[in-house]
């Protein structure tokens, strides 16, 4: 059974200026333990797809399932976690207690299953010793690490990540990409990763779904056959560079095509 199944999704937003088709007939699957990135020019509805998978938005047509159940059911069974671009830390809680926020919705018995787990996750993401710190004392990259630790707390089958490193500088982003690969190889959940960074998508993914804008449709699927485990050598390899170059070419073509359509030149 695929981890995430997306069937013919269409999403129309009604704006003041009239209805806008954000996504049109999107279909793709994410297999178990697969890392899939969704990439595309801004305005192609990348985040919208992720929000539909998470059940935060309802599609106008089509349906989504996570491990065979609806998004809302998956939420109840805690099958997925969502990592936002903003790390979303509550400033009145320390870092460890921020990682424990997901436990707040559980009853006492359910909570017991996760005793000590927050500390483990904190160690896993390399924040040992920062549990008692205030999130305000952490750098942006460290806060995002904490957010990842929190997302892994309940051992989700599926991780939905919405440009988690989008607000970081390139040096930090590279570092966290390597970290994410290390962490992911330990957890082996399926990942749907939204990004607008080509290098990031190539390095992290088993497969890249490329979207074209207005309306968002699947323009291409690219398998990235780089070996696992992914490390710094692979990141700097010629193969990775070649993948990035071809993805960049395709993206440029898509952006150009979209511009031509918009300006009425066919």
């Amino acid at each position, binding site marked *: 059974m695929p981890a995430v199944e997306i069937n013919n999704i269409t999403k129309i937003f009604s704006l003041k200026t009239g209805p806008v088709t954000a996504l049109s007939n999107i279909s793709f699957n994410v297999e178990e333990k697969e890392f899939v990135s969704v990439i595309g020019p801004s305005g192609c509805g990348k985040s919208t797809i992720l929000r539909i998978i*998470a059940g*935060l938005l309802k599609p106008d047509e089509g349906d989504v399932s996570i491990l065979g159940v609806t998004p809302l059911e998956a939420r109840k069974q805690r099958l997925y976690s969502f990592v936002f671009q903003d790390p979303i830390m509550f400033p009145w809680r320390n870092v460890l207690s921020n990682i424990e*926020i997901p436990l707040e*919705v559980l009853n006492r018995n359910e909570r017991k299953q996760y005793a000590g787990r927050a500390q483990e996750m904190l160690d896993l993401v390399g924040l040992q010793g920062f549990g008692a710190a205030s999130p305000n004392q952490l750098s942006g990259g460290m806060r995002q690490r904490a957010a990842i630790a929190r997302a892994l707390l309940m051992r989700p089958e599926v991780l939905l990540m919405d440009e988690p490193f989008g607000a970081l500088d390139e040096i930090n982003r590279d570092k966290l990409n390597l970290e994410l690969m290390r962490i992911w190889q330990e957890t082996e959940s399926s990942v749907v990763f939204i990004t607008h960074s080509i290098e990031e998508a190539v390095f992290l993914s088993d497969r890249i779904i490329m979207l074209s804008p207005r309306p968002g449709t699947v323009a291409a699927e690219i398998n990235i056959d780089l070996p696992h485990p992914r490390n710094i050598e692979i990141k700097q390899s010629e193969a990775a560079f070649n993948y990035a170059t071809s993805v960049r070419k395709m993206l440029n073509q898509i952006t150009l095509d979209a511009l031509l359509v918009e300006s009425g030149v066919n």
Partner: protein
Amino acid sequence: MIKNNQLHQTSIRKANKARIFNEFKNYGIAVFLLILFFILWQFATSSSFERLIPKPSTIVQTIIDKWPLLATNSKQTLFEAVVGFLIGTSTGILIAIGFVYSKKFAKSIYPFLVFLQCMPLMALMPLLVLWFGTGLASKVVLITLATFFPTVINVVQGLISLDKPTIEFMETLNASEMQIFWKARVPFSIPYLFTAMRVTVTTAILGAIISEWLWATKGLGAVIVLAMFNAQVEVLWASMALATIFSLLAFSLIVILEKLVIPWHISNQE
């Protein structure tokens, strides 16, 4: 990494010390200016002038001499202010919650609130006395009316300040509306409540004194009116000085409470 963190902590502590010293320096200047002001006042007040503006030493002496009278009446005024403040603030919070959770409620109540806010409350006081008598009730009602509007406005702001990603985050955790309210909305809105209370706490004391001007036999306001009719200027000044001190203390209490309750808030970090 841990070692780095400790180093980091020491430098933070050093920076904190420097900041506290700087702040002390700033306050030092303020205190110096204040003392200078009182000294000038003390020596600039000539005997012919003293009928209207007594020397600071005379005011202090009056407070000491009339302490039994001033103390009982202050107690009355503070009691009214505290009761009115508590009722006004809690009503304000409840109405704010209603506002955020029911658009219908918000739309139907808001015009009345604005109407009430625009009404000069002092002009309402005689009516309140007719309705609720000359005792505690009329004063508490006035203070409640004066304090709850700023509370509503600020707390509504606070409750709706929760950003969309945070709401979505809580939703993905399968949190109920109630859980989102208690775990996220309420804590994020507390700084706004404190902003309101900084304003309303002094309003409450002002409201108590002014409401005592009409028909009251007890309270600092009553003392002020009586002193005015008997041309006891120094008692007037003594009451005013006490009222100011109470307002200052009440304000400081809120500020201290704020630092204790929401030390995480930006306003308490710089």
